[in-house]
């Protein structure tokens, strides 16, 4: 019936074969109540999932490509890059997939798990491929990749392929239902650390902070127009031990101004743990400095 040389037929056939190749890279993580999310078969004994989709539990039921059901233990999660890894009880064959670089305008094929060992597919474009960015949780993501594609909740965590069948990364819901990609480079960087330690270490003071304007009367002595007001202090945390209390306005840490979130987030990387830090703050109408030691952030 159809003309095999018809470009649209060829295009469609190419997509079908891509999905066929990609379906061995997706597993379903069961969430109960008949619901699931997708995981990406990453390497022998490791599947990667979107951290934000996983409830706080240690073990999950996994539907491997082909449909065999097995348990999978959570082996690490990092909310700052939205990457979680699980170790399935049985080995899953890992398809050979090359890493791809996203380009704005290129075709993007997102694969999800159907929950029964098969795959579901979504076709769209790379709406935007930009530079590195920091997540609200302080993690560094290698590239900003936004897709023009619809995705179901159950498909989040699956691989996104380019036209050549290379993997751009893992699909993830961003704010306002936007579909973004956690780049392959970020997964490659984070997975070994997660597999080793179960988490990504991060510096911690034990405070919840909210940006505030420095009151006019204190602008001059503070030498900046905004700071981070301490809303709560974790008992026995580094900040509490240093005498920091709710209501203090933190102006800088080791000379790094709190005026910009990104700069201060960078100051609390894994290398900051155990380091002494000088915290400059406003308390009771005056500017003062306290000494503290950065600790390791507890599991979120």
């Amino acid at each position, binding site marked *: 019936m159809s003309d095999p040389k018809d470009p649209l037929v060829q295009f469609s056939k190419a997509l079908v074969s891509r999905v066929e190749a990609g379906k061995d890279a997706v597993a379903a993580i069961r969430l109960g109540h008949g619901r699931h999310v997708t995981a990406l078969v990453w390497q022998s004994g490791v599947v990667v999932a979107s951290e934000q989709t996983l409830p706080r539990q240690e073990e999950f039921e996994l539907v491997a490509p082909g449909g065999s059901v097995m348990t999978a233990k959570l082996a690490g999660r990092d909310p700052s890059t939205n990457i979680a890894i699980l170790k399935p009880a049985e080995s899953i064959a890992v398809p050979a997939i090359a890493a791809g670089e996203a380009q704005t305008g290129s075709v993007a094929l997102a694969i999800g798990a159907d929950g029964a060992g098969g795959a579901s597919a979504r076709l769209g474009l790379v709406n935007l491929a930009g530079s590195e960015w920091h997540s*609200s949780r302080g993690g560094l993501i290698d590239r900003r990749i936004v897709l023009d594609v619809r995705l179901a909740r159950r498909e989040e965590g699956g691989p996104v392929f380019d036209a050549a069948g290379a993997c751009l990364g893992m699909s993830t*819901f961003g704010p306002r239902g936007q579909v973004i990609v956690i780049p392959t480079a970020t997964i490659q960087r984070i997975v070994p650390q997660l597999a080793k330690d179960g988490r990504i270490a991060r510096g911690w003071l034990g405070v919840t*902070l909210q940006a*505030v304007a420095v009151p006019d009367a204190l602008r001059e002595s503070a030498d900046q127009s905004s700071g981070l007001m301490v809303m709560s202090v974790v008992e026995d945390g580094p900040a509490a031990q240093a005498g920091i209390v709710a209501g203090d306005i933190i102006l800088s840490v080791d000379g790094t101004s709190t005026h910009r979130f990104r700069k201060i987030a960078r100051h609390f990387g894994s290398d900051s743990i155990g380091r002494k830090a000088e915290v400059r703050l406003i308390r009771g109408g005056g500017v003062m400095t306290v000494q503290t030691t950065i600790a390791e952030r507890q599991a979120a």
Partner: protein
Amino acid sequence: MSEAARRLMPNERLRVALHAADALRRATLARTLAEDGYIVVGLAGAADVVLADGSCPAGETRIVVALGGNDDDVAGVLPLDADTNQIDAAIRAVAAGLIVRPPGARESGFGAMRETDGQALLTPRELEVLAALAEGLTNKAIARRLDISLHTVKFHVESLFRKLGARTRTEAVAKASERRRRETIVL
């Protein structure tokens, strides 16, 4: 009057099936529904709307309002701590074929760290006034609590409205809470 519009009328007796794992929650919700004039039916019964405490039950094909949960497929999603007016409004809305989402629901998701707009940042004093607004205090009561003049309170409230782009006290409280959610950082 259309069927949809008729269903939005408060005197329409809708049948609601209740799905709640917790017995106490189920009892509380059933009482609330009955007081609001709904006919509470069993889960297996003929219902216009299913009210689910938490996630929607698997395979449910009827119109669902879920308290909590984050399921795109259901017609109504409310926060877990939605009040009785919100539950009532949501049930009527979904029965009339509308979709209900709380503000900020679509905001959730893995996003970028946002730098704050320095011009619109609130001062510590404004945050205190805001906390009092959230409790429903009058200007006079706020002045008494913070030990400042009524004139100063009015000044702070106006500044809050301007910075938050709000026209009413309720709107100011809502916008500030949305902003707090976005701008709170943990170190």
